[in-house]
């Protein structure tokens, strides 16, 4: 995953990792902290499991007990985060907030949280060495559409995690297999509306047919890159891809995912009609002489005109033959003869 192994911080200084109750992106965040070649500042508000990650490269700020109303020494998280960012060394750094929703609930106002994040992303962009702001957010959140706008950041890398059950659902209910088995345009036309309806994913996981939890080993990652995507060309466009991610193997193509192998191992075979002449205990085939004799049998009720005999009506002309019955009053005279016009 290029935004983990080869992050282009100068072109993509803002990364949003979106989780849902059906599938969490915390595994990706953990891998980002572990595999990053540069140092990170982690502001931990909700997930203590991230505090045990790769301590040498991660400076963690433990804000787990900084809960308003329950901490007599409560410190406003905005001041704490801004102060840490302003006093951070000038080297390339990743600034990670593990739960933007928790930050918003502590601040108590979505507009104020948005203003704070605007200030934060400006600070990160203005650093002498390219750095990056990484936000993890749980959808649905009123902050999410605000953070994805170009007004907040012209360039954006936005990852959305989906459970693998979603692709199995599309293959079963919509008969649409993931690319490359289906054309991309057709797949995205079905995948996007279904994936945006969160209750669909929640029903797949927590409904009567679900397993009760998202897959903790594999997940689908929808990666949306806005701005310079890093392929050597300066592009101003939005690129959307769907990739697989595994806890043990990291990023990989969709066919490599163990949970999706049944979809990709299906052989596309033309359905052939059952041949009734096969597997019977008697012979239904004809020999050549039998076929010849059969072809010579005249079929009844078939008007086979003998081309040698003269036709009764050689010229086929249209004509109406009408036989009047007793009720008809046919008169050959002109009915308008007595008119004096």
């Amino acid at each position, binding site marked *: 995953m290029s935004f983990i192994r080869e992050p282009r911080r100068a072109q993509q200084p803002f990364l949003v990792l979106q*989780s849902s*109750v059906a599938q*969490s992106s*915390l*595994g990706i*965040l*953990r891998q980002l902290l572990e595999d990053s070649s540069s140092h990170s500042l982690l502001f931990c508000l*909700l*997930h*203590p*499991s*991230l505090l045990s990650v790769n301590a040498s490269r991660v400076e963690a700020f433990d804000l*787990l*007990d900084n*809960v*308003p*109303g*329950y*901490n007599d020494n409560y410190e406003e998280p905005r001041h704490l985060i801004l102060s840490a960012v302003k006093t951070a060394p000038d080297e390339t750094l990743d600034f990670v907030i593990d739960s933007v929703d*928790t930050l918003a*609930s502590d601040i108590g106002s979505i507009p104020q949280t948005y203003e704070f994040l605007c200030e934060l992303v400006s600070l990160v962009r203005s650093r002498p060495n390219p750095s990056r702001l990484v936000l993890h957010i*749980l959808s649905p959140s009123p902050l999410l559409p605000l953070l994805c706008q170009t007004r907040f950041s012209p360039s954006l890398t936005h990852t959305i995690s989906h459970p693998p059950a979603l692709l199995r659902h599309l293959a079963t209910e919509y008969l649409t297999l993931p690319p490359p088995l289906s054309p991309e345009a057709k797949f995205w036309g079905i995948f996007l509306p279904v994936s945006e309806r969160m*209750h669909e994913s*929640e*029903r797949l996981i*927590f*409904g*009567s*047919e*679900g*397993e*009760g*939890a*998202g897959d*903790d*080993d594999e997940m689908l990652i929808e990666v949306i890159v806005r701005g310079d995507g890093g392929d050597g060309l300066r592009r101003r466009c939005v690129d959307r891809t769907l990739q697989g991610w595994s*806890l043990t193997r990291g990023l990989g193509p969709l066919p490599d995912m163990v949970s999706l192998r049944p979809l990709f191992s299906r052989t596309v075979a033309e359905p052939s009609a059952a041949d009734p002449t096969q597997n019977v205990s008697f012979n239904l085939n004809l020999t050549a002489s039998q076929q010849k004799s059969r072809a010579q049998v005249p079929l009844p009720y078939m008007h086979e005109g003998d081309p040698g005999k003269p036709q009764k009506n050689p010229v086929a002309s249209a004509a109406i033959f009408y036989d009047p019955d007793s009720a008809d009053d046919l008169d050959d005279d002109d009915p308008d003869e007595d008119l004096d016009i």
Partner: protein
Amino acid sequence: MLSPFDLPAGILLLVTDQLSSPADFVLYRAVFDHLKAAKSDKVTKAIVLSVSPDRARWAAVAAKSNIQLDQKLTTGAFTFVDVISPKSEPDLRPAFDTVVSELGKSGGADVLVVVDDLATLEWTGTPVLDLTCFCRALAAACRKANATLLIRQHVLTPSTTEPILEDLFRTLHHMCTYHMEVLPLSSGRSGAVSGQVALHIGPGTVRAGVKLYPRSSAIHYKLADTGALFFERGTASGVL
């Protein structure tokens, strides 16, 4: 912790149950097994925070497991906290302060904190934000003391295939280390089998060798006088 599941200590375990499959037996088993695990070199302590306290029932069920709860209350090994204060509005700060002070007095003891249950507060109008802050603060305090936190959350049984995921459940699910579901049998009520239990890993938790039980391979349980008996699906294991 909590046999037959080999859950580690120091976690946040979310236990969800439904009206037709209450998880009372899970709470009793967790607390009584924890108290019984006390040895000469290992002190154990249990703190139960209850929204609808029924201390007499706890004592009666404990007696069936050969635990004298009054004695444990006297020695401080067992603490029962009424979450709702006598004031008109539920204020969770006193309950939190009680837990923090008990955690402070425990020394090096192995502490289990049980919260039962917050859904009642949510349904009676307590803002979800207040409950979320209470759970965050409690989880942080337990983590500092290396105590185990067990939160029981009622979930509504859906009448259709659409699950009912309430706001407090979504928040607790996002925070938990492990999630245990006590579910009714999908085939309906049975006289021999009381229900089934599934165990999931929480989001962000690193796998640590704990055996998980997705719903498709959930283990069955049967309630008896002495507690719950667990057995694998499709086997009787001397239970039935």
